[in-house]
């Protein structure tokens, strides 16, 4: 395992997404923007092991895996800017990125990455023996019928597939455990699939766990399910009101709180215990959002890998400088000729 290489890939993914955040803040990127900050160890630990021909099906939170996969950065950024020379001609946007040469596809439909990856795996088994497919998905998506059906299909067809399920504890603004029955690892095992859980903050642990599954898949030993726990550092998407409210309750939450209080004190509706129960549950969700890991804090996988690289300090500094230069150059190239406020 090449830790410096994994470190570089994690830093590339982070630096890329910080640049994307900046562009989004400036209004250069429209619509929703879901960052994968906090997922870098999972992306690097798994995707660095893919080879030519391997397939990759991703979600709306797709940047880290695509960056690590080596999809060229400038066309990706140009796509987010809606440019004609973007990765998808400005037609797809950040939730709908496609790179045919990398056999990499994303979707904004929750759960859709699993059946797509199963199809990649099926085609690979027939057309490119030894090649596999990987699906990235969120834990919330594992409650979609198409995801559960794919667990079964992959086992029944013994597909060369790895399903990487990223569990950050949230399904948008809902805590995952409040809408999920049982354990996801046990759920996958219930379909007869090999399944394990790994600390998704630890890139070496992810790499090791994924290596075993990928090797099995390449040898025709069937699919695996890898549950990787990690933090969600920037909410469901940029500008997530839950995060804004949790962090700045007075400024951001005033209007919401006002309408909640006016409704909760209105005549008609639930009894006292219903109302109290509702308020308590909301407060606990806000508290969880407030407690969440933050960038560069102890829970940030980048912090962990930075520490793990302590023995290679000179190399670490060199990688940092190279990554910064690479991303800055990509951003500069992508932004050449772009005006602020494209709507003006």
């Amino acid at each position: 395992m090449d830790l410096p290489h994994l470190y570089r890939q994690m830093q590339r993914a982070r630096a890329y997404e910080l640049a994307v955040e900046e562009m989004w803040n400036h209004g250069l990127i429209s619509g929703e923007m879901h960052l994968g900050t906090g997922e870098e160890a999972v992306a690097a630990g798994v995707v660095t092991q893919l080879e030519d021909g391997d397939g990759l099906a991703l979600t709306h939170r797709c940047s880290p895996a695509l960056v690590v996969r080596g999809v060229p950065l400038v066309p990706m950024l140009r796509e987010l800017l809606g440019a004609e020379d973007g990765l998808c001609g400005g037609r797809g946007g950040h939730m709908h990125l496609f790179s045919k040469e990398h056999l990499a596809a994303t979707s904004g439909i929750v759960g859709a990455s699993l059946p797509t990856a199963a199809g990649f795996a099926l085609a690979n088994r027939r057309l490119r023996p030894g090649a596999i497919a990987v699906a990235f998905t969120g834990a919330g998506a594992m409650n979609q019928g198409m995801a559960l059906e794919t667990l079964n299909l992959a086992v029944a067809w013994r597909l060369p597939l790895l399903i990487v399920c990223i569990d950050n504890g949230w399904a948008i603004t809902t805590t995952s455990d409040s809408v999920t029955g049982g354990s996801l690892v046990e759920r996958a095992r219930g379909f007869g699939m090999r399944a394990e859980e790994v600390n998704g903050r630890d890139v070496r642990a992810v790499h090791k766990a994924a290596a075993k599954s990928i090797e099995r898949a390449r040898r025709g030993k069937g699919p695996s399910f890898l549950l990787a726990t990690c933090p969600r550092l920037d909410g469901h998407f940029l500008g997530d009101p839950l995060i804004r409210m949790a962090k700045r309750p007075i400024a951001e939450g005033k209007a919401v709180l006002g309408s909640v209080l006016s409704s909760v004190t209105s005549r008609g509706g639930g009894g006292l215990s219903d109302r109290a129960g509702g308020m308590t549950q909301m407060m606990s969700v806000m508290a969880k959002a407030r407690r969440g890991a933050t960038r560069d804090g102890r829970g940030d996988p980048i912090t962990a890998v930075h520490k793990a690289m302590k023995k290679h300090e000179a190399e670490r500094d060199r990688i940092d400088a190279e990554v910064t230069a690479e991303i800055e150059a990509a951003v500069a190239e992508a932004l050449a000729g772009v005006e602020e406020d494209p709507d003006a």
Partner: protein
Amino acid sequence: MPEMSFGQAVDRAIEDGMVRDETIVLIGEDVPMLRAPLFARFGADRVLAAPISEAAFVGAAAGAAMAGLRPVVELYMVDFVAVALDAVLNHIAKLEAFSGGKWRAPLVIRAPSGAGYGDGGQHGQALWGSLASIPGLTVVVPSTPADAYGLMTTALAHDGPVIFMESKLLSEEWLEFLGRGGRDTVTFAVPADGAHGMVPAPPHAVPFGSAAVRREGSDLTIASVAVGVHRALAAAARLDGEGVDCEVLDLRSLRPLDVETVAASVQKTGRLLAVDEDYREFGLSGELAAVCLEAGLSPRFGRVCVEDTLPYARHLERNALPNADRIVAAVRELVSV
């Protein structure tokens, strides 16, 4: 009743309905946070957070409706109805017919729809035409806060399934959540009269199948729904300066469609322009032409619709959607002969 935003009007209609009728429950992803006032007022028994399992919770809502509840089910976006389409197409819509009219399911699906904030072609579709093609469903598409309140109120009291389309561009709550995200660096072409407006007091209901004449005119009829109505009105104001007098119909519901009002207007003007944020082929615009032909009318006909998968880039999206420029150009062509 005060001035409200479009989204507030929908929320208020549901809240008022839930006070009146204890069988109404609200189901959807994130509803405890998205509908925090309702969650706080009615509690977790009536405001139910759903997992990301559209096929299951829409199907379960249909079953609950068959068994006595009146669920309001929220989808994040109408695009995601695809995940639950079996429940809608093969079950909810079929119940009344299959039971020989003896069993109906009072279910409302609240479906944010439409584009205009750069979220790409999987999050900005209208799809009301596809859904309105299915017998057994009612499909309503309001364009003002007053109609949003009134049509939701009618939907809540209706004994069959209703798809309630909430245009995201009219709903500042959705635009803030999905498009702006606290930024002041983006702007959207929001029709002011659709996003905010007076909701008449006392609380009222708007019947299904009743179009509204938003502007009277003699030269040409423009028929539309939702954002398209406001774009048509803006175009009509411009055309007025050129001596072209447009009548603008707000259809308000697609199924049932107010054929009588459409036919009466077209008989008067002899020209029909369908303006539709949904796909052009096999949808509302073609249906409008068909009902005119069936009524024995043969107007000069044109349509301004979405012609392809919606592009992500803002400048491409703007031209892919029906806008005043496209409408003006189409009207000029129709009145030129």
